């Protein structure tokens, strides 16, 4: 087991190198001069521009910039943003917020998606199944920003249950609404996947055998149907984590959440290489860790899978 985890972590190294290089290159290749753009309509004196260029290593060739950045990362220095704030500080401020938002969203989509999928699957063809199909189709076809504005208006303004934008420090109750919006992206998929998986498992021979042993339905459903059905759902969650990150960028923008998504968006607009690359690197790292955790969880759910050796 330890060997497997080590191997997976080692595999992360080339992935990280590759992604940072690509992202750095893309930011570098973006049109426009980031320093000039920084001053807006004003024209700064050439000396100032030169000084700033030198400070952010923008005067050096691309590959040198990248290697300097890489070397700094290994010493723990993520550089400084254009506003003068250390990138590591921005990361510390924003990542906890986004992680909280993402965790809440995953929680909502799993609780709602799996329970609705389970009931639909067990009552295949019933009214509940049919209505959950319709609702999930509607949710699938709605773009997330449309849904976000509708929810903002309905729950925030019409009913007045939540604040429409997230306050400073992003208190958890303010994050509920954005988390629900974020959760709806994958919610429909999880409902459908769980439903199909439950129907499949319910038809398995071992479920009938469990009943023939004298077990009640109340025991068979969680023990023999749900657990087996979760295996593909958990796999999906890992793959879907990327979607969640993209969704977080949009949702954070709309609800004004001081998280990674909004900060990253602004950094891209300003062409802030170090900030963008640092953020993306951390996101890739999280993505890899989440996938590793899911693979380990997979082994817990399904004893046939062993990562020994």
């Amino acid at each position, binding site marked *: 087991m330890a060997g497997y985890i080590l191997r997976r972590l080692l595999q992360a190294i080339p992935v990280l190198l590759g992604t940072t290089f690509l992202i750095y290159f893309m930011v570098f290749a973006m049109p426009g001069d980031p320093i000039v753009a920084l001053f807006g309509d004003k024209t700064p004196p050439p000396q100032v521009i030169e000084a700033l260029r030198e400070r952010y290593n923008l005067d050096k060739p691309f590959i040198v910039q990248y290697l300097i950045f890489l070397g700094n990362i290994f010493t723990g220095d993520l550089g400084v943003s254009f506003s003068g704030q250390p990138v590591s500080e921005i990361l510390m401020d924003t990542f906890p917020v986004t992680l909280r938002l993402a965790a809440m969203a995953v929680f909502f989509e799993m609780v709602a998606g799996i329970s609705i999928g389970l009931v639909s699957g067990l009552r295949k063809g019933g009214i509940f199944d049919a209505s959950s199909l319709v609702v999930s189709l509607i949710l699938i076809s709605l773009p997330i920003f449309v849904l976000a504005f509708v929810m903002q208006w309905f729950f925030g303004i019409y009913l007045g249950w939540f604040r429409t934008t997230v306050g400073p420090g992003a208190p958890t109750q303010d994050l509920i609404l954005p988390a629900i919006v974020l959760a709806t992206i994958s919610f429909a998929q999880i409902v459908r996947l769980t439903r199909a998986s439950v129907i499949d498992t319910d038809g398995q021979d071992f479920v009938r055998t469990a009943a023939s042993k004298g077990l009640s339905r109340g025991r068979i459903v969680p023990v023999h149907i749900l657990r087996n059905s979760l295996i593909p759902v958990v796999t999906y969650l890992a793959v879907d984590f990327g979607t969640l990150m993209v969704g977080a960028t949009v949702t954070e923008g709309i609800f004004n959440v001081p998280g990674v998504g909004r900060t990253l968006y602004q950094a891209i607009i300003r062409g802030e290489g170090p900030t963008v690359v640092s953020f993306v690197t951390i996101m890739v790292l999280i993505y890899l860790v989440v996938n590793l955790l899911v693979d380990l969880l997979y082994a817990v759910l399904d004893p*046939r899978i062993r990562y020994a050796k």
Partner: protein
Amino acid sequence: MSETSNGSNVQTERAAGAERPLLEIKDLQVGFNTQDGLVKAVDGVNITLYRGQSLAIVGESGSGKSTTAHAIINLLPGTGHVSGGQILLDGQDLTKASKKDMEVVRGRKIGFVPQDPMSNLNPVWSIGFQVEEAIKANGIATGRKEVKARAVQVLKQAGLGDADRRMRQFPHQFSGGMRQRVLIGMGLAANPQLLIADEPTSALDVTVQRVILDHLESLTRELGTTLLFITHDLGLAAERAEQLVVMYKGRVVESGPSVEILQNPQHPYTQRLVAAAPSLASRRIQATGSISAAESSMADDAAHAAGDAIDLIATAEARAEALAAAPEAAPAIVVEDLTKVFKIRGSGDFTAVDKVSFQIPKGTTMALVGESGSGKSTVAKMLLKLEDATSGKIVVGGKDLASVTGKELFNLRSRMQPVFQDPYGSLNPLRNIGNTIAEPLFTHKVGNNASRRERVYELLDQVSLPRTLISRYPNELSGGQRQRIAIARALALKPEIVVLDEAVSALDVLVQAQILRLLADLQAELGLTYLFITHDLAVVRVIADHVCVMQKGRIVEAATTDSVFDSPQEQYTKDLLAAIPGASIELGA
């Protein structure tokens, strides 16, 4: 004979009302809702089973035998439901029992041993968990330690020696036979009065089957459990149960004491079953000393009177005559010291086939017999050059297979065709029958469209299928028809050699008999050479001239079929022969 009449006397006394039957099924109707309306799977079945008795329901797939079993414990699949009749367990009508009542009945009063040990244990829970669960649900023991102790006891009783240790393991770490023991243990965990065993061993090797059934028999006798046994094998049923119920298309066509039914079948369907069961046919051939004697002993038999009955003994006799008439032929296939070693990651090499040598004379059949994992299918794959040999030599029609490549190999393939076990998996569902049969002709560029079509018609005639099937698709055909299609495809290029890898193992007995007959006829007509791979020695008796018995990659015994059956040399062969069901049955001679 006297034993039998005693048995029926007891039967009549009981029926007179001295004792209430444990299970009484009265006019049971089971229907499935389909798009075409209600389809009746079971139609007016009556079964009476007394305490301590054993009864077997026999029938082919689709006869409603498993549906009847599932109806008893109210676990019908999908839209199935009891649409009429009664199922009385000790006087309680199970068709009217509530959900809660049924939960009490299941496990505690009726134990159930399912068919396929591979799919009937939940792969994500340990063996111990699944056994303990059954014990807890039926209130047999309370408290962790007691439940565990009982689980160990149950598993040991079912023949799992080191139950303590293996409880923590998962189903995938168990062999098929071991899993079936676990399932039997679970079925008997709560000491039910009635145990329903639904084809408990049809997925297992013959020798394992025998051990498991012996164990099940002694266990139920010891515990005084009444046994309801479901099987498609008449020989097995008669050997393992006192009473027989023969089902056909949802109805009971015949019932009574096993020996009486076997000796004197009344219904034409039962007569056909008796005549077609390979286990019985091989026993009969064995009992009378020769095929022709067995044939003449059958002459007065009701089975013969059945007219269109496919009689396996007649098939065997026709084959034997044809062979006797033929002069000694040159070998079509010579295999010398054939070895196949598979490299397995982490655990070194595995020798699947170990220095196997044999010859098959032209126009004859050689059977390669062995259990799963004995290497027999690997031999077939190497012969077809679907797998390369590690060492050794295969000579087909005078050519060494190892040196044959490219164009020459392509031509050689047309002379050597396979038929595989699963008639559902070996036909492409998206191609119609005509294209399927003609595919080898296209591949080898034989003839034009018109002549190919002519050839497909000819082949359909040869395998006794109507020409109208040419535009149909595999899903519209039955298993037996599909296997005929697979044979027709194999014959399309007029091969000299046909490799039949468990080609009749997945078929019902009657269909199996028809296909065996067809193979025998085609051999006589076309002079084909067969390599017949099977785990079922009973079939071998009917179809093969020579037998090679394989065990763990080696041929342990090789001789003519007669001498293998008459005087087996190796213990393993003797075990295999003993495992053919029906040994203890006195057949009407």
